[in-house]
């Protein structure tokens, strides 16, 4: 019984990892047989061997720190501006009706295409990266804050009012605690959007952390290191999304 349960639990995990290993093995064999040029697709062993140079010569970890710092600053700004804005859209019915659909349109707009405009206005620097990522992250925070506040059961607010709570007490004791799970979801989405935007813009404007590193390596035809840096970005992003999802589940009740 225990064996069956363990196989049901670990079987798919093992199958997933085996499939990844088989793909990497096939790629290695194709490269070893010379079917694809190493300049186009270097073998996984060469990509793995490039990591010491990526760390020592290309400053992989400081670049990682820079990229994540920019993403956290942009997401932090989005929270600082977006949460009160979302509360305002909830508190003033006319503002919610007038502007919520605009914020939703803004969220769906391909803002990243505006980067030449930001280059002209702010220059090729971290300011452009943070400003654009802030704009990308903010709509999610605004919309989720409003959604969280709108979704509070009226009975909770009525109980607060029947105990004679003022507007400020009502906000701190009822509205905020009841909407925290949805707001946390907005903050998580904001962080994800900010990270995607930071890496993308660093790559496009060839400035900053991991995005610039990939572009630099591509221009120098350091293909093995380029694949290594791309793998690193993908793996760290996946770990980051996994951890923020776990954190959000931990915060969310039920």
């Amino acid at each position, binding site marked *: 019984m225990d064996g069956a349960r363990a196989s049901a639990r670990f*079987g*798919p*995990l093992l*199958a*997933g990892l085996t*499939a*990844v290993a088989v793909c990497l093995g096939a790629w290695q064999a194709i490269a070893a047989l010379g079917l694809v040029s190493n*300049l*186009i*697709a270097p073998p996984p062993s060469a990509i793995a061997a490039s990591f010491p140079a990526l760390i020592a010569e290309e400053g992989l970890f400081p670049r990682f720190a820079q990229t994540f710092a920019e993403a956290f600053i942009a997401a932090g700004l989005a929270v600082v501006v977006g949460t009160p804005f979302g509360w305002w859209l909830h508190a003033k019915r*006319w503002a919610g*009706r*007038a*502007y919520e659909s*605009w914020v939703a349109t803004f969220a*769906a*707009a*391909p803002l*990243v*295409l*505006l*980067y*030449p*405009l930001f*280059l*002209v*206005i702010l220059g090729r620097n971290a300011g452009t990266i943070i400003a654009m990522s802030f704009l990308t992250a903010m709509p999610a925070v605004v919309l989720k804050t409003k959604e969280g506040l709108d979704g509070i059961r009226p009975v909770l607010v009525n109980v607060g009012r029947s105990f004679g709570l003022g507007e400020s007490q009502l906000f701190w004791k009822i509205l905020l605690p009841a909407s925290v799970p949805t707001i946390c979801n907005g903050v998580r989405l904001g962080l*994800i959007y900010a*990270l*995607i*935007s930071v*890496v*993308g813009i660093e*790559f*496009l404007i060839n400035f900053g952390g991991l*995005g610039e590193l*990939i*572009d630099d*390596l*591509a221009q120098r035809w350091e*293909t093995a290191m*380029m*694949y290594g840096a*791309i793998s690193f*970005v*993908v793996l760290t*992003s*996946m770990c980051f*999304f*996994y951890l923020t999802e776990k954190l959000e589940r931990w915060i969310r009740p039920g």
Partner: protein
Amino acid sequence: MDQARLSARHFLGSVTALRVATLIVLFLAWEAVAASGWLFEGVVPSSFKIGAALWDLLTSGAFYSNIELTLGEAAISVVLGAGAGIAVGLALGRSRFAGTAFEPYLHYLAPTPKIVFLPILLVLFGIGPGSKIAMGTLSCFFPMALSVASGVRQVDPVLLRVGHSFNLGRVAMIRKIYLPALVPPIATGLKLGLGVAIIGCLLAEIKMSNRGLGFLIMQYYSQFRIPYMYAALIVAFAVAALGNALIARFVRLPGR
């Protein structure tokens, strides 16, 4: 009752007035910044200059060849990305084992910044439309695969039992049961996928190409023809919005 209707109409009228007032304030603020020269000269051109540039673009034949190329790349990307996404989504959704084994990889790979794959796509497909189509395909694949996989798991079990009791084979089950039941998730996947495919193609063009709408935006930027850059950006946003509107219309159809 009439009183309530009147007050609702008054409220909606005030909301519209507020929106119009906001647009007027934004327009005047833009014109004031343009006229003041607070930012570098020409960085914020008057909206009339942008309008003239937009007219110039829309009346030039060469502009349409660039738009055609971008739209063609996006269309091919959607066909390839959505096709692959539907196939993978069906495979993952129909088998609980496959879904548990492989879907977490898709789930966490989906939000990673796809633009970082562009150097690999350029190496594989060159700087022509091939790398742009590959970028759009990659972007479109993930939302479609995840939407279809989740949709397959929500197909009514009664429909599946009916299919099995009629002894339908695998292909017939997909054609007669799964695909008709999957129209809403496919439509949702298309809605998400089309937007990211257009953005993927445009970004790839902006980064490295010699034709297309994205290329035009970068060309105007490097020549410092700022009103034309704004005009091309307006067209790019309009293309993305039009694509979303078309799909949104399509998404509503299954519910009718």
